[in-house]
C-alpha cells in the first residue's frame, strides 16, 4: 500500500507536536481528533459559522478550512492557550461577567475572534464590534452580551 501520511509539525499554544497525518486532515480535525484539546469546536465544517476560529500567527483563521499541513511552522493559538498562568484573558473574563454565552459551543470561536477584533482595532464602537464579530454565529442569541463583553475587554486591554 502506498504511503498516505506525511509528518506534520504543529506549534500549538507554544507546544511542539509531531504528527503523522494524511495531507487531507484539516487543522480542526487534527486538533480535535488527534491532539485532543477539544476547545476548538466544529459547527459546520464549511467556514460558515466561526465556531472553529483559532489564531495562526496572530490572525483569526477558520480551522475547518485550513489543512493541518498549511499551519506547519506557524504559531497556532487556541482557546486553551489564551489564559496565562491560570489568569484569564480579559476577553474570557468579560465573557463570563457579561454572560456572553449560553450553551458555550460557539464561545471558543467568539472569544478567539474577539481577541483578534480588539487587536485589529475593530472594537471602536458597538456597531463596529457587531460588524467585525458577525462571522461568528451564536444560535443561543448572546449577541448583545458579546458586544458588551468585547467593549469591556477592549477598554481593559487598552488600559
Amino acid at each position, binding site marked *: 500500500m502506498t504511503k498516505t501520511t506525511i509528518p506534520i509539525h504543529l506549534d500549538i499554544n507554544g507546544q511542539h507536536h509531531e504528527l503523522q497525518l494524511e495531507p*487531507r486532515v484539516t487543522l480542526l480535525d487534527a486538533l480535535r481528533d488527534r491532539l485532543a484539546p477539544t476547545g476548538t469546536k466544529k459547527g459546520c465544517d*464549511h467556514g460558515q459559522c466561526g465556531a472553529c476560529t483559532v489564531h495562526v500567527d496572530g490572525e483569526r483563521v477558520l480551522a475547518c478550512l485550513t489543512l493541518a499541513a498549511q499551519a506547519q511552522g506557524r504559531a497556532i493559538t487556541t482557546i486553551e492557550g489564551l489564559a496565562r498562568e491560570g489568569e484569564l484573558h480579559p476577553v474570557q473574563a468579560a465573557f463570563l461577567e457579561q454572560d456572553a*454565552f449560553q450553551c*458555550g459551543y460557539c464561545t471558543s470561536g467568539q472569544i478567539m475572534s474577539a481577541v483578534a477584533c480588539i487587536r485589529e482595532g475593530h472594537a471602536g464602537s458597538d456597531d463596529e464590534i457587531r460588524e467585525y464579530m458577525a462571522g461568528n454565529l451564536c444560535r*443561543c442569541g448572546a449577541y448583545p452580551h458579546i458586544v458588551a463583553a468585547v467593549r469591556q475587554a477592549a477598554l481593559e486591554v487598552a488600559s
Partner: protein
Amino acid sequence: MTVHTRHGDASDGVTAEAVGGRLSRVDGPAKITGAAKYAVEQQLEGLAYAVLLESTIASGKVRAIDTTAAEAAPGVLKVLTPDTIISLRTASDWFGTPPPDKPYCPLAHDITFSGQHVAAVVAETFEQAVAAAALVKVSYDETPAIVDLSDGKAGDGIPIDAMTKEWGDAQAAFASAPVRVCAAYNTPREYQAPMEPHGLIARWEGDQLTVWEPSQWLDGMARTYAEWFGVSFENVRLVSPYIGGGFGSKALALSHGAVAACAAKMLGRPVRLVMTRQQTFTGYGGRAATRQTVALGADRDGRIQSIVHRGVNETSMDGMWVEPLGSVTSIMYATPNFSSKQNVVRVNSVVPGAMRAPGENPSAFGIESAIDELAYEVGIDPLEIRLRNYAEQDPHAKKAWSTRQLREAFAAGAERFGWARRAPEPRSMRDGNQLIGWGVAAGTYPVRRAYGEAIVRILSDGSVEVESSSIDMGQGTYTILAQTAAETVGVPADTVVVKLGDSRFPRAGVTGGSRLAGVMTGAVYKAATSALDQLIGLAISDPRSPFHALQANTLVVANGRIASPRGDGPDLSIAELLASIGRDHIEATGDTMPANSTAQDRYKNYTTIAMSLPHTEGDYSRYSWCAHFIEVRVDEDFGTVRVSRVVSALDSGRLYNPKLAESQWKGGIIMGIGQALLEEGIVDRRHGRIVNNNLADYLVPTNADIPDIEVISVGIPDLHSSVLGGKGVGELAIVGVAPAIANAVFHATGKRVRDLPITLEKLI
C-alpha cells in the same frame, strides 16, 4: 431561608448566590477556557468513525446500493445498508405507547423524504469514512413526491379533532359583527440549527451500552435505545455533560443514533457518528410549515365578538406531528364566540419536530397580526385594542389565571419604549430614506409541570454535591441548582458542585417546554431540605456532637457554619461538625412525585411525557406572558428591514437567576428576529430537497443583525406553577416577536406581510 452576605452583585435585595441572585454561570469557566468536554469529544481507545449517506430522492425505493468500491477503500471497517445492518425492535413513542411488534431498521429501503439515511460507512479515521462514503453508489426507483403544503397533490389533510376548540356560535357572530377582518398567515419550515451538530459516540461492553450524546432527555433516550436493542433500561447509560444548543431538537433518540449503536455492536468497537451540518436539516424535524386563517368579528369599539380560526401544518408520510396552531388564539383575548380547528397534511418530509415554543409561536403570529389589522380597521391604537380585549380569566378553560402580569408588561414596555410618542398613521415616521415603524405584540407559553428527583450530599469537607440526570444546554441548570442547594443548606454557592448529564444520576424528565427549572429547583429544594434536617438532627442528637449538651430544639446553618439560633454554644464549620460525629457525608434523595407513587409510575414519569401535569389542572390556568415593543427601519427604495430597537417586558414569575433568565429571553427574541426576517427552508420542487441546508444559505441572525435589546421582568412569584414560584423562561420570549415585527413593518410601510419571513421582495 438563609440569606448570605458574601460578595456578589446584589439584585432585588438578594445576594448573587441565593435563589433569585445574579450569580454568573458556574459552568462558565469551563466554557470560556475550552475545558468543557461535549458529548462527542470523549477520547476513547479504538474509536471508529461513521459517516451517513442520505437519499437524494424524496419518494420511491432504493433499487440497489453498490458498496464494492467503498469496502475496498483504505481504512474502511464496514459499510452498513438496510440489508446488512442488524435488526432492531420498534421502540415506544414519547407518550410510552406500546410499539407495534415489528422490526425497526434505521436505514431505509422505502424512501419518504429527501435526506433519509440509506447507508453508513465506518472507518478507522473520519477522513477515510468521508472519502469512502463518496464511493457508495445508490440507485433509486423514484415516484412523484408531495414536496410541501403548496403542492397541488397535498390536499386538505387530516382533521385533528383533539385540536378543535369551540364555544358560542363563532360563525354566526362573525357574520353579524359590525367590523370584520379575515386573513391568511403562513410560516415556512424553520430549523433549530443548534451550533453543535447532532451526533454521538456509542460503546458496547457485553450487553451494556454507553452513549455519549447531546441530549435534552437522558432518561427518555435511554429508554428508546433499550427498547431498540431489547436490553433493560438499566443497561443503557446516556452521558451528556454539556449540550451545544438544542431548542427542541435533541430530546429524542433518532435513527442516526440507532445506526451508530448498531455499528458499534457489529464491530465490537466504540463508534462516533456526527451529522454534517447539511444532514442536520433532514436528520430531524424542524418547525413544520403552517397555514392559518384568522377571522375576527368585532364591534366598532374594537371589542372582539368572535374568533374563527383554521390551521394546517405539514407532517411526514409516516409520522405525525401536530403544531397546535390554536393555542394562543384561544386564550389571549376575551371573546364570547370562538372556533378553532386544525388539519395536518402529509408531505414527503422528515417528520417535523419541536422548535422553541412549538404551537404557541406560529399561533401568536396569526392572532397577534390579526388583532393589529383589527386595530387599524377600527382606528384604535394597537396597544389599546389589546387592553380593551384583555382576558381577565382563561377564556377557554374558564379558570382564573394563576398569575397574569400581561397588563403590567404592556405598561412597563410601553413606558420604556416611549409608545405614547408613536404617530398612528402608517408611513408617518421616517428618518431620511428609512421608514420607521413601531409594532407591539404579546406572547405567552403554558407552564408545563412534571416531577423530578435529585440527590444532595453534604461532604466531609463541608462542600455540597448535587446529582441529577437533568441537563444544561445553556439555560443555566448547573447554576440555579447550585443556588438552590446553597441557599437551602446554608453554604456558599462556590462550595456546591452540581453534577448533571448522566443517566445514572437521579432521574429527570424531558428538558423541554420550559419545565426543567421549575421541576428541578423543586426536587433539589426537597433533597437539600432533607439533608439539612439530617445534619441538624445529628448535631443535636449525636452524643459526640459539641451541640449535644446544648439541648437545643434546632440549629441554624449559614455560610457553611452551624450554630445555635440564640447565639450561645459552639459555632462550627460543617466539616468540623461532621468530623466530631464521625460522619463521612450526609446524603438525601428528594423528589416531587406524589407520595404513593410506584416504581412503575416513576419510570413512566421520567422516560415518557405521559405524566406531565396539565397547565389547567385544578382551579388555575398557568401561563407565562410577555409584551414586545419593536422598532424597524425599512429602506424605502430597497425594502430592506432592520430591527433597530426592542423593549420586551416579560412575566416568567419569580426568576431563579435574573442574569441567566435575561440571556434566555434575549436569545428567544433574537431567534424571533430571525424567524421574522431571515429564516426559511426552501424546498426544491423537483426532488423535494431543502436547497439551503447550510448556515450560509439558511440565514440565522448574526451579531450585525441584532440591536441592543432591553428586557424587563414584571413577574411575581407564582406558587401554583412551581415549588419556588417560577414559571417558564426559555420558550416564552420568542412568542410574539415575529408579529411585533410584522406589525412594525406595516406601521412603517403600510404593507401587511402575512407570509414569513418578511423579505425585501415582499415590500417592493
